[in-house]
């Protein structure tokens, strides 16, 4: 197995995630895209960890997962708040609201 | 068994044997639970007889059931999300199969021997939530949706006490490997007397109680059967399912009951083992080979006892309300199991 296999897989997922963040209007979908990005990061972390033979990457992957969970929790709560107030979870409308 | 397989048999045959074994390990408990408890025990508790006509004492009832369900029409409601509607039962069944993988049946009779076995079991058991949530949503039915949401809310709420209850055992055993947990219980001793081994049932009684309550809830059995509460939601997330797909849900429900009971037996009752001192064993290596045959039977017996408990409660209690259920999990079970962990940890460190 090549190291690059994993790294490029990570890169692909990352890019798809970025596309999702840019293109999606629905806030929940944006959060999902962010999850994609975080997962690609995890793959990289673990791949490097295997390369170096240490457990640092694992520890950080765990932390990433934990923080991602917290992020989703708060993010979705915000989405819900938004939905409750505006009956829509379109992000561009949110931007309009500001201006 | 594994040692035997590893040396002589090619990998594909091993895997095939394992899969067949897995089928037996899933379907046998399911059949047993349905016939023995759902049909017979329930009837007896209500001073009835249960199925009697199909075969002697209704022993062929299950075959009749399968034969019947095979011919039933499979309805997909027009407004349902067809694809998700179809795969939801498979997800639930797959979760059961993934769960049975970690159960050790004997000293060498296991399917897999993960280092993080119990952790794995807890992880995959939560997959069924997805299946149920999908089933509830994809049916496009109000009862189903309410049932699915309730089920998901309940399953996640009780996943946690279950996880926390297990931690006590892990602290005591110092490992997450189920096989080692079994050995630790059967090879252990209580106050220097090893006639009983050290089943964690005795030391982790609180953990056991919490675990069994959580299992009851995970299996959506009364008093935690709000997701399929008949008098409220008709059949909850299964309302729209007909034909064989419904049977898959049904099988999965009872198979999971069996598998969870096995896991509980492994964690708290010493699994496949009997106290090692009876035969003068001290470690996994000493155990005679016949234990690979007897072990599954012992485990099966323990499973029957635990499913009896589950079903006994099921047929005796009324059901909670959804908020009471959540309150019970968060205000009683989780604090209790946290305290249990702390006490266990302190004792472990102290002694």
């Amino acid at each position: 197995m090549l190291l690059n296999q994993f790294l490029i897989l990570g890169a692909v997922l990352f890019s798809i995630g970025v596309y999702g963040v840019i293109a999606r209007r629905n806030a929940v979908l944006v959060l999902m895209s962010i999850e994609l990005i975080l997962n690609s990061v995890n793959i990289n972390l673990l791949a490097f960890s295997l390369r170096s033979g240490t457990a640092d990457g694992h520890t950080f992957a765990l932390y990433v997962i934990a923080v991602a969970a917290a992020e989703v929790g708060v993010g979705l709560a915000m989405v819900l708040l938004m939905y409750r107030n505006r009956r829509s979870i379109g992000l561009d409308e949110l931007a309009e609201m500001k201006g | 068994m594994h040692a035997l397989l590893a040396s002589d048999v090619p990998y594909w045959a091993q895997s095939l044997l394992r899969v067949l074994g897995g089928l037996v390990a899933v379907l046998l408990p399911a059949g047993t639970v349905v016939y023995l408890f759902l049909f017979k025990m329930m009837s007896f508790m209500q001073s009835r007889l249960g199925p009697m006509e199909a075969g002697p004492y209704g022993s062929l009832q299950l075959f009749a059931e399968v034969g019947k369900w095979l011919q039933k029409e499979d309805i997909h409601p027009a407004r349902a999300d067809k694809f998700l509607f179809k795969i939801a039962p498979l997800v639930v069944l797959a979760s059961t199969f993934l769960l049975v993988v970690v159960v050790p049946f004997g000293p060498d009779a296991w399917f897999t021997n993960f280092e993080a076995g119990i952790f794995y079991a807890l992880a995959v058991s939560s997959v069924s939530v997805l299946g149920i949530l999908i089933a509830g949503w994809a049916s496009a039915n109000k009862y189903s949706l309410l049932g699915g949401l309730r089920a998901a809310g309940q399953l996640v709420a009780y996943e946690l006490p279950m996880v926390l209850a297990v931690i006590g055992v892990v602290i005591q055993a110092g490992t997450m490997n189920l096989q080692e947990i079994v050995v630790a219980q059967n090879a252990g001793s209580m106050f220097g007397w090893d006639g009983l081994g050290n089943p964690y049932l005795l030391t982790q009684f609180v953990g056991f109680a919490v675990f069994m309550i959580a299992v009851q809830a995970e299996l959506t059995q009364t008093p935690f059967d709000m997701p399929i509460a008949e008098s409220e939601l008709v059949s909850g997330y299964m309302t729209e399912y007909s034909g064989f797909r419904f049977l898959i849900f049904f099988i999965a429900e009872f198979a999971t009951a069996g598998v969870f009971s096995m896991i509980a037996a492994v964690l708290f009752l010493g699994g496949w083992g009997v106290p090692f001192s009876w035969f003068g064993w001290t470690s996994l290596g000493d155990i005679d080979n016949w234990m690979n045959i007897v072990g599954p039977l012992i485990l099966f017996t323990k499973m029957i006892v635990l499913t009896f408990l589950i079903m006994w409660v099921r047929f005796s209690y009324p059901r909670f309300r959804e908020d009471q259920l959540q309150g019970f999990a968060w205000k009683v079970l989780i604090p209790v199991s946290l305290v249990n962990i702390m006490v266990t940890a302190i004792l472990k460190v102290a002694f």
Partner: protein
Amino acid sequence: MTLIGDRQQLSYIAAQAADARVNVELETEGMTLNIGPQHPATHGTLRIIARLDGEQVVWAEPSAGYMHRGYEKLTEVRTFPQVTALVNRIDWLGSFANEVPFILAAEKLMGVEATPRAQHIRTILFELSRIANVSLFLGDLGVQLGAVTPVFFAFRDREYVLNLIEAATGGRFHPNFDRIGGLKDDLPAGFIDETRSVMKKLRNFCDEIENLLFGNEIFQSRTRGIGVIPKEVALQYGLSGANLRASGVDWDLRRDQKIAMAWDKADWKVITHPDGDSFARCWVRLQEVRESTRIVDQLLDTIPGGPVMVKVPKIIKVPEGEAWVSTENPLGEMGYYVVSKNDQGPFRVKIRSASFNNISIVPWLLKGVYVPDIITILASLYFILGDIDR
């Protein structure tokens, strides 16, 4: 018996109302949930339409009529014996109790009174049908709350009572045993002894249910403080029977009304409960079954001898007049307002059935509760579809 104080009651009601209001403001796309006409919780074919916000009921209304069979019209085209056979089927669980007030009303118009023995046997059968009726309620209560076993116990022990009723009247359900002026027939031999032993079984059944269900902490937490009906509201809606007594009104037509029945020959208590919640209603019914078994036991000792029928002509014509008779039926006050025009059949019969009034409170009661509480409240109000729809 723990009581919920008035203050608590009122605050509960206020909280319900406030909650419902809050949710109406928030909710825009609520869900309308149909419970029924085919639904396990509706004892038949009642339909509850509930607008939900999440699992909270914003607004709910029972929609009756799926079992409307036009009794009041049918009575106008039938003769008095035929009507007796028909009204059996209004409250199909306590059939004999349906016949009694009608027959009493007809007797009142005709100015006849049944013999003492007939009155006694009527009372015994009346109480037996109450036991058969309410014991099934106790079992069904379990099913509604998710416990499967009580209903089997209820059916098991109810069969003994039905055997008695059938042995005496010939019908398990619809005795059609009452006649203007007495009863169709006397009791068969062995009835008294058999009844005594069955009453023992029934008391045992009550104990079982009490242990299995009423003592259960889950059951109590499901029913206590749920669906509180204050006294004044209960009277406004014309609630009757155990539902009224559970709200603390000490009123039982069996005791308070002087009619040609034998309740005053026995020593028994009227059960009341001050709480007015679902638990109180169920509890009152449980105790009433016990009291009924006591009444039956006592009446069995004192059956007077003599005929069971006074002399009435074979073809009955009831003189002109109007009469109202109601009795304390298993479900509550059931009465018949009979208008006769000196004919073989009644001119107009208004059937005042208990469940109709008992259920009319539901829209008021369901506001702001949760979906599971709908079931609890409906179960504890205890209705029978035929009694609502007639």
